[in-house]
């Protein structure tokens, strides 16, 4: 950037320039190749300008050249921590367009997998949040528990992160005979482990000092910038798609949409922790009642959507994920647009972090839970 000005020394005082720091594309706390152009005055952040596109992979454009079931395989490369939710969004969109009714069993399996993904994602977020604030031990606690979920995924569909489990009309394979047993074991164990998380980080004085009363986001700003997910709900923006436009088995379960009004970093942190309990609660309601039946309906060999526009949104771990498909009746989509939660959340960063210290910027960015391929697509 050629924005640096010369230092002018006058007789009475020294005019100094703003300190322009490139945070990223390679930086430990941007968790990927995000570049933030940060204007500093001493330690104070004046302005943050995110520059995206360093890992842009042209997924939306690629979708135009491939068939509908293949689109699903690209979606879990975007937000790799919410892979199953992304897959499901496309599958639901195609099913709605073709007006296919999926078996009850599929709905249950998808919802359980959704919530397991959410838990795994929140666990990783918690590890990284601690690490960003300098508490390196959290990283190992979170990864230890996340491993159990990934093992369940591996047994169910062979993959640990890029699941590709949902297909139009159902899921790719039936669940493993051990699935229910292992999930129940995991819930029992994780309910014991979650209080450890609070002991290690939430209750820590330094942690509370670092996160309380920083990075305020008002309800108006949250709505204006389209901040969704736990980040938006921390500001009181009721935006849980699972409640407002329930899909899969969500209409059948009891759960609470956690809302708070304060809108600071600690509130967003606390909401995510509470969401983990809610996720466990949802899985508990479903895991024993998975109905018998087919795991997928028979679809035609070549999926062709009728002409028109179709939109489906789901709640990923980061917020509202939308799939917009324009079809011209052929076997591949005319245009696909993904509404990714990370992109909208990132651009509210300037609103939240301007005027804070550079260390707060890291903490605030951490509660937004950014996944860079989700932003760049």
């Amino acid at each position, binding site marked *: 950037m050629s924005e640096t000005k010369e230092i002018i020394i006058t007789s009475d005082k020294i005019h100094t320039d703003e300190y322009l720091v490139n945070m990223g594309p390679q930086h430990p706390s941007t968790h990927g190749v995000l570049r933030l152009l940060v204007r500093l005055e001493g330690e104070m952040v004046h302005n943050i300008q995110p520059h995206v596109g360093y890992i842009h992979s042209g997924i939306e454009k690629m979708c135009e050249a491939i068939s509908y079931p293949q689109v699903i395989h690209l979606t879990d490369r975007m937000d790799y921590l919410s892979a199953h939710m992304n897959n499901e969004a496309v599958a639901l969109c195609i099913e709605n367009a073709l007006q296919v009714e999926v078996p009850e069993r599929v709905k249950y399996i998808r919802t359980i997998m959704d919530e397991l993904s959410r838990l795994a994602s929140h666990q990783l977020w918690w590890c990284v949040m601690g690490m960003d*604030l300098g508490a390196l031990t959290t990283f190992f606690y979170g990864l230890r528990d996340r491993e159990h979920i990934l093992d369940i995924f591996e047994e169910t569909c062979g993959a640990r992160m890029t699941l590709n489990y949902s297909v139009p009309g159902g899921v790719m394979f039936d669940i493993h005979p051990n699935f229910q047993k292992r999930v129940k074991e995991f819930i029992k164990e994780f309910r014991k482990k979650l209080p450890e998380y609070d002991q290690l980080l939430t209750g820590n004085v330094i942690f509370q000092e670092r996160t309380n009363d920083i990075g305020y986001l008002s309800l108006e700003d949250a709505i204006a910038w389209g901040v969704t997910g736990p980040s938006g709900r921390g500001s009181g923006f009721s935006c849980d798609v699972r409640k407002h436009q329930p899909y899969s088995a969500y209409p059948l379960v009891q759960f609470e949409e956690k809302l708070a009004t304060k809108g600071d970093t600690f509130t967003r942190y606390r909401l995510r922790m509470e969401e983990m309990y809610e996720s466990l609660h949802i899985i508990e309601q479903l895991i024993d009642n998975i109905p018998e039946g087919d795991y997928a309906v028979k679809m035609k060999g070549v999926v062709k959507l009728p002409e028109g526009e179709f939109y489906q949104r789901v709640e990923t771990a980061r917020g509202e994920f939308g799939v917009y498909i324009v079809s011209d009746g052929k076997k591949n989509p005319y245009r696909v647009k993904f509404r990714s939660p990370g992109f909208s959340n990132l651009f509210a960063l300037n609103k939240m972090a301007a005027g804070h210290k550079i260390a707060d910027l890291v903490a605030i960015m951490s509660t937004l839970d950014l996944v860079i391929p989700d932003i760049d697509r």
Partner: protein
Amino acid sequence: MGFNIYDFSGMTHNMHLWFLERMSPTATTIVEWTIIGVSYMLFVALFGLFLVYAERKVCAAFQQRLGPMRVGYWGLLQTIADFIKLLMKELIMPKSADKFLYNLAPFIVMIATFLAMAVLPFAKGLQTLDFDIGIFYVTAVSSVGVIGILIAGWSSNNKYSLIGAMRSGAQILSYELSVSLSLVTIIILAGSMQLSVVVESQRDAWFIFKGHIPALIAFVIFLIAGTAETNRGPFDLAEAESELTAGFHTEYSGIKFAFFFLAEYINMFIVAAMATTVFLGGWMPLHFGSFESFNVVMDFIPPLVWFFMKVLGVIFLIMWFKWTFPRLRVDQILTLEWKYLLPINLINILLMSLVVLTKFHL
């Protein structure tokens, strides 16, 4: 030469005489200096390597893993392998760095640590410099290291390095106060700044017991401020990797990076050794007033063992801080010092003076 594990003064004295018989006084001085210098360098290198290994094992234990296990038995040779790697690495200097200062900075940091080591009493008679302002000397030379850090941050011509160095400067200047004042509390109790005298006067009871509550408060403050002085977590703002990549030593590689790295660990040792000497009785064994048989058994353990046991205990505490606490923010660090530690310290000195005046400690 009269080697005695409980008292080294005879041995060193005999050595001195042995050299004097065979060469001129000047040559003796030079030879003795060389021996002392080489021993310190060996000690710093070996103990530094050991501390790095210990840190990795301690941190692994906190994080439910094993740490280094592959090189040598239980990974004992891992740090040696790492340092050989660091020695062989290319030294990369940024094109726009200030070459002289850039090369100078690691040495200033190292020199400061060596200087501070000079007065530490490892055991009876095992002390290089024993002069009447020992404690004052340690606080003075240990703050020279910050100049090295500031120079490193400035000369690297890297924005992150400079922010790290500035943070480090502000932090060490502030916490220097707390370190000194908590030591002053004990100086009042001991009545001397000479480290050997301080240790000797703890023969019956360590100062942390003898000085009642003021000594305990001073010890806690010294631990907090000492951790901050060594730039370690939760006060590792100068090298906060999530904010400033590696802070002031971002641009250093190879052996120059190793110097900063080693200096951090040796500084931790110096803080622990000062805490041991001033609060925990130095190399003195643990004595309880009237338990004669217990005292005799304790006396049987050599002073060197006592010293290193205490030092390693304090080092373990400092490592424990690092691996459980998140990092403080720069303004919180300064608030903690100026608004809490400093007033508490001043009141504490007053309390200690009252204790000494009323002869409550005797």
